């Protein structure tokens, strides 16, 4: 049974894995997030879109309390994150426990440089979740197979390309068997030709039913893969909706301006019609 | 401690500083010579330099000093405490300086030498006008660091009887039965000198960074 009482959360159902309510955050005098609320259902892929400085990354980082929100509640699968239901700020141990249930993929990969690829993937499941090493190794190798990097398992991250590092980062996050995966601009630091290999892995994950929240500038990805799009500007949720609605018929003016600037060409038809003669 | 005592410490300090200056003045060019020898890969000589530098960087100054002071007269070279002190300081600091110069030489961009070659500069001219000015600049922080290290080891000269600052402090302590105050005075003299050198080194490093950024 949920312990939530605020009205925004009253409509949650058991298939909602993440709910964010009334989230606000300021850095000094700059308000970066202003009363943000939304929910993510199991199996959804939610893309956070918006211009730079809109607060998307900060919002993402508040979900696993890498940034500490000034106000608001975050609930993962029925359990609050960061502040207990009694209103007490969580201690290190409790917070760390919650974080093991949320996977994160970083813009600059953040792989652990002193460990090999395989060790990177195995590290947290063995030492934080305390799972048996053999079981973790088998799973880690399977994950590396899945992202196409099994041959590189004994290589150090410094020897990998950006795209390879990010795929390892995804495998590393998956190894924790998280309820939810967060992606913080996963392809922004990549050379253009390496972006595709990472998006392909993310596409597969989405189609397999992984619950994902993705901050990205890759509009084609959002259009094709997202089950829902949340558009933010200057710390506020401006518009949300399915990709079909958002990309083809945005209702708000700010969304329209954004799409004009960031989407070079209007949405092309997905299949070419052959001329009927 | 009377004012005469303090004066004695100051005159000891002067002796120390003069000897340090000798060591620094001799050690810089000798270190440079050794570094160039290794950089130019002069046969036989570079290997000797390599061994010499490795040995001297591993040898504590007090051991080296005692060795020179006692052993040289034994093989027929009469040395007093001051000469032994200067020789020991010079040998020690030249080895460390060699490594500082060598690091700059090895980091020196080859293209600049090739550019100088391509306009017909011969080796001596190349070295004097292209290489030297730049390695002086890049070596400066390391060399100043080495100078501050040298000054910090000079108290050891008292061991062989040089009437330096340590000797003065020890003597006064023995006479007044208060060993600590003269040593505090001694440290009070050393501290600002070393601090000045360390600050100079930081200033040079910052200037270097700024010049690099502007280039």
């Amino acid at each position, binding site marked *: 049974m949920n312990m939530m009482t605020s009205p925004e959360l009253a409509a949650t159902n058991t298939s909602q894995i993440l709910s964010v309510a009334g989230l606000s955050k300021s850095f000094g005098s700059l308000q970066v997030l202003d009363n943000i609320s939304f929910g993510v259902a199991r199996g959804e892929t939610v893309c956070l879109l918006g211009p730079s400085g809109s607060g998307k990354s900060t919002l993402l980082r508040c979900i696993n309390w*890498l940034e500490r929100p000034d106000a608001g509640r975050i609930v993962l699968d029925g359990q609050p994150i960061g502040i207990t239901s009694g209103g007490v700020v969580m201690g*290190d*141990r409790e917070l*760390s*426990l919650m*974080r*093991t249930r*949320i996977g*994160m993929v*970083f813009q600059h*990969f*953040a*792989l*652990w*440089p*002193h460990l090999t690829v395989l060790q990177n993937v195995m*590290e*947290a499941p063995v*030492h*934080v*979740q305390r799972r048996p090493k053999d079981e973790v190794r088998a799973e880690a190798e399977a994950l590396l197979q899945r992202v196409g990097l099994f041959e590189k398992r004994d290589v*150090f*991250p*410094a020897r990998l390309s950006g795209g390879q590092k990010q795929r390892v980062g995804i495998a*590393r996050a998956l190894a*924790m068997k998280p309820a939810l995966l967060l992606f913080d601009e996963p392809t922004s630091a990549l050379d253009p030709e390496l972006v595709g290999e990472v998006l392909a892995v993310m596409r597969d994950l989405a189609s397999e039913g992984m619950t994902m929240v993705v901050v990205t500038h890759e509009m084609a990805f959002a259009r094709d893969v997202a089950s829902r799009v949340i558009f933010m500007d200057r710390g506020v949720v401006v518009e949300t909706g399915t990709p079909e609605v958002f990309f083809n018929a945005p209702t708000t003016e700010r969304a329209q301006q954004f799409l004009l600037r960031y989407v070079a060409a209007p949405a092309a038809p997905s299949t070419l019609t052959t001329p009927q003669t | 401690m009377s004012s005469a005592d303090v004066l004695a410490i100051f005159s000891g300090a002067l002796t120390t500083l003069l000897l340090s200056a000798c060591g620094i003045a001799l050690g810089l060019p000798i270190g440079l010579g050794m570094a160039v020898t290794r950089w130019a890969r002069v046969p036989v000589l570079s290997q000797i330099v390599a061994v010499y530098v490795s*040995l001297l960087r*591993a*040898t*504590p*100054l*007090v*051991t*080296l000093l*005692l*060795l020179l002071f*006692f*052993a040289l007269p*034994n*093989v027929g070279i009469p040395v007093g405490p001051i000469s032994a002190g200067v020789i020991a300081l010079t040998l020690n600091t030249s080895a460390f300086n060699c490594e500082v110069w060598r690091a700059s030489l090895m980091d020196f961009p080859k293209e600049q030498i090739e550019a100088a070659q391509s306009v017909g500069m011969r080796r001596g001219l190349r070295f004097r006008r292209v290489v030297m000015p730049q390695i002086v600049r890049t070596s400066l922080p390391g060399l100043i660091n080495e100078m*501050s290290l040298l000054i*910090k*080891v000079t*108290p*050891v000269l008292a*061991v062989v009887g040089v009437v330096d600052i*340590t000797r003065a*402090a*020890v003597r006064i*302590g023995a006479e007044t039965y208060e*060993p*600590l105050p003269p*040593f*505090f005075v*001694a*440290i009070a003299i*050393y*501290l600002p000198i*070393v601090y000045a050198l*360390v600050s100079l080194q930081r200033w040079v490093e910052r200037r270097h960074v700024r010049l690099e950024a502007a280039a």
Partner: protein
Amino acid sequence: MIHDFGLVWLDRELLLTGLGNTVLLSVLAGFCALALGALLSTVLMNRSRFIAIPGQAFVDTMRCTPFLLFAYIVYYGLPSLGVNFDNWGAGLAALIVYHTAYMAEILRGAWAAQPRAPIEAGMAFGYSGLRMFRRIVLPPLMLSAGPVVGNQVIQIVKDSAFLTIIALPELTHAASSIQSRRYIPFAAFIAAVLLYWAICLVVEAGVAAVGRMAEARR
């Protein structure tokens, strides 16, 4: 000359005892200085100026003070504070206190050069406290600081020789004894120099090994 070295060989026990003491002093002082230096470096990086500034003052003072004078002060000064160390205690204390300052500065510099992202990843994956420090923070830090720490250990070895002044029976003191008893200064001190060289080569081999591990991961 060979005859002289033969005489040194007769006294090899004294020399080897001196070597053993030098190594013992250096290893003890090295470990303690590194551990205390790690603690002190957290003081140096503390956000509160009341904590950081005295720490920095201590470090700066040690770095501008000749070790020999500091050793004298520890040796002569501690008794007046009621602490009665013999020359071993005073020598070890002086080495540790002095080099803790240097180690703290080294570790602070190494820490500042570390990238923050892998540590944030550690937080995101549920690491905290001691586990975070041991598995995520410390290994890359040690790999990066290895060579500089190694150099400082060599410095500790050489500073231990100064302790001959307070009659500590380390290597230089042993060589001095042999020299004064048998009048073979060259052989005695050359033997000591070669032994110091051997110690340094061992430390440098360790540093090189750490350097290779770091290089593989760079």
